[in-house]
């Protein structure tokens, strides 16, 4: 198992003929993702690395049958339209890659996906990967790197930073600890699946034995994780690192979500709440594999 995507998921690429769309289609196909169809309005009939291109998502579904996932590579201001189109055509998971999507657009996507019981990851995400099965988005950059950096196993990784998603997973791989699914939830203030939702999926996933999160200042995601752990709704061990100790209130550090508003979302309060809940908070990213390895070993001994 794994969450959200595996080798059987049928994947659509919106914006497949654009610069990013083309390059990442190649990465996904090379890795083994079932890229079934692409959409670029006005370019129906072409193909990209053997993937047929259609004018609309509905047409792609008519021709190729039901599609599970859409990875969206259109310009930021068109993301809302693309996401609504995909969900309307029955796609159950949209992965929104672009950065700088207006927040009110994200709110509309969220409303509609809730209504249609669909999910989305991002915006501003590198994507996700279930090692050995499939990559969605641009994580890893090239299939060769993705194969080298990520390995199958029992650790679920959820991160608010794209680069750190790869970094943490790479260090786990190097320590001999494989991953079930690795997901970059996106750096924005409002994202589709956030840490707490992802962790609940990992909790239900039999392959996942332990979860690692890379948190940051700003938003309520880590606080909600602390709540879930306190309430016993997450029982598998969680290892966390929170970035942004040095950040001062009111200033944003790259990610739109990484801003402390008043005392809410500060580094100190997140670390305190997570520790109180029983989450294993580490001080350096380099300590993650050590801690995770130790916890898995303890868990193994108990069983």
């Amino acid at each position, binding site marked *: 198992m794994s969450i959200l995507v595996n080798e059987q998921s049928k994947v659509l690429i919106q914006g497949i003929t654009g610069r990013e769309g083309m390059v990442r289609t190649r990465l996904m196909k090379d890795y083994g993702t079932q890229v079934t169809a692409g959409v670029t309005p006005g370019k129906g009939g072409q193909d990209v690395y053997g993937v047929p291109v259609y004018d609309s998502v509905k047409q792609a579904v008519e021709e190729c049958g039901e599609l599970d996932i859409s990875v969206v590579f259109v310009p930021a201001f068109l993301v809302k339209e693309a996401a609504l189109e995909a969900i309307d055509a029955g796609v159950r998971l949209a992965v929104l890659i672009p950065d700088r999507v207006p927040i*009110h657009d994200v709110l509309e996507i969220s*409303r509609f996906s809730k209504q249609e019981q669909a999910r989305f990851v991002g915006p501003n995400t590198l994507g996700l990967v279930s090692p050995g099965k499939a990559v969605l988005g641009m994580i890893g*950059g090239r299939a060769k790197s993705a194969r080298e950096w990520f390995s199958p196993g029992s650790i679920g990784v959820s991160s608010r930073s794209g*680069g750190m998603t790869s970094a943490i997973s790479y260090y786990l791989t190097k320590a001999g600890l494989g991953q079930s699914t690795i997901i970059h939830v996106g750096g924005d203030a409002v994202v589709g699946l956030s840490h707490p939702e992802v962790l609940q999926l990992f909790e239900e996933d039999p392959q996942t034995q332990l979860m690692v999160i890379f948190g940051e*200042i700003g938003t309520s995601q880590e606080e909600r994780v602390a709540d879930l752990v306190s309430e016993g709704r997450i029982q598998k061990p969680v290892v966390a690192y929170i970035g942004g100790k040095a950040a001062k209130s009111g*200033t944003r550090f790259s990610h739109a979500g990484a801003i402390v508003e008043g005392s809410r979302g500060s580094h100190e309060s997140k670390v305190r709440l997570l520790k109180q809940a029983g989450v294993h908070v580490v001080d350096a990213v380099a300590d993650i594999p050590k801690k995770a390895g130790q916890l898995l070993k303890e868990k193994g001994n108990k069983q």
Partner: protein
Amino acid sequence: MARLFEYQSKKLLKQGGIPVPEGKVVSSPEQAAEAARELGRPVVLKAQVWATGRAEKGGIHFADSPEEARKAAREILAIRISGLSVEKILVEEKIDIQSEYFAGLVIDDAEKSPVMLFSSKGGTGIEEIARKHPDQVARAYVNVSKGFREYEARDLIRQTGVFGKTLTWLSRVLAKFFQVSQKYDARSAEMNPLVLASDGTVYAADCHFVVDDYAVFRHPDLGIEVAREFDRPPTELEKIAYQVEKNDHRGTFYFFQMLDEVDEKENVLGFNGAGGGGSMMSMDAVLDQGFKLANYCDTSGNPSASKVYRAAKIILSQPHIKGYFASGSGVASQEQFHSARGLTKAFKEEGLEIPAVLRLGGNFEEKAIEILHTYLKDIPGKVEGYGREDSPEFCAERMKKLITDNDFLSHKVRPLQEPEITEEVYSFQTPTGEIRINQEKCLNCSTKACIEACTQNILKLEQQKPVLAISREDTEKGKCTECLACEIFCTFHEQDAIFIHLPIKGLKEYREKVIRKQEKCSDRRK
């Protein structure tokens, strides 16, 4: 989040049909007196700054006559409020207030929904109101596809003990307030206080509006210069940096200054992160070593080499930094040799004298580190490149060591120099600059390797000289990716015949100012 001043926010409310006090923005005591005369009644003068609690800080004055208004304006313009100087004053009719309310819109990331907040106790901050009068604060999530209807507003407001005609008036205003907030992509908005005047009218007496910076492009009418979250207006260097970001969409370049002024005696770094999370982690690592940062900067998302070059030139426009520290997540998906080339060109041109630690882990990191070590070994400052196996903590320690070895030498800002254009130069435009080839020199070149160095294959040989193999138009439109490979190769291995001119608007003048200040400082010391 681009903040608007009170007067700008009120203009939006007024357009949306919400009553605001009649008033005018002025920037001199004379204009203030004139505005008071035009209004012809008692006025209030309010400093237009991004600070809360203006009244206690001397930013709000009342005046009964134009003469008093002149005097009050003079006082307001002379002070600084929370460290900010006052450039504009809003002169408004004084409202006879009967009661004060609070109305606000925030976005709840857990519910992924806007939230309308209302309190029958206005005036202070909502956190304080909620603490003191929890029963007089109510909140409601908004269904964005339906909008916020008047009946929903009524149901919200009545929970705070408001009734009768006031309830209907306030409900109407609140429904319109949501419309304005949505129309202008508010990240947050607040009318505080929202007042009931003795004439029975509801006015937004103060208003605070923050536009989502990702949506600023939809609102050119707002005239927002730098769409960035700052708790103060942008500095001159930040404005220059923002133009670079705005005019080049390849990857991200995010820059802001963290110190008002860099003290020569302090251990300060120029910081160049990559990726939000990796940058924050790296920042925490260097701060743990006792450094301060002159700036925060993030070049990521597969930026062009030219963009990283410009970022480095901007970072190196800050005097007195002791070292240059670049570090991201360590396992970046982007091709790291682009960053390496950008940094190489910048450091070479600057003749960098301070040490640099560059942690460029990720795809093609070996090539990136090789570029740095090969081409930057002869500049005065020591440059060390690192990859994914080297932790930010280790790199921060290296930085400290190199700076100590370098005797804490301060970076000196140099004038921006451009080579003179001679007539024989063969040149063509790139997306954001110009490539100039001195073909006379090419005659002495034995390798002609610039042709191969160009991965886009836009160059070819003609009579032993490199020329464009494609149209000038395609080159400028992006066939040339400004990877800088041709220049780097030619500079270090061949005839130094290629120069890529990548202008940064305003930086020359900015540096001249910095240099004048730098010289004054050193004169004083002598």
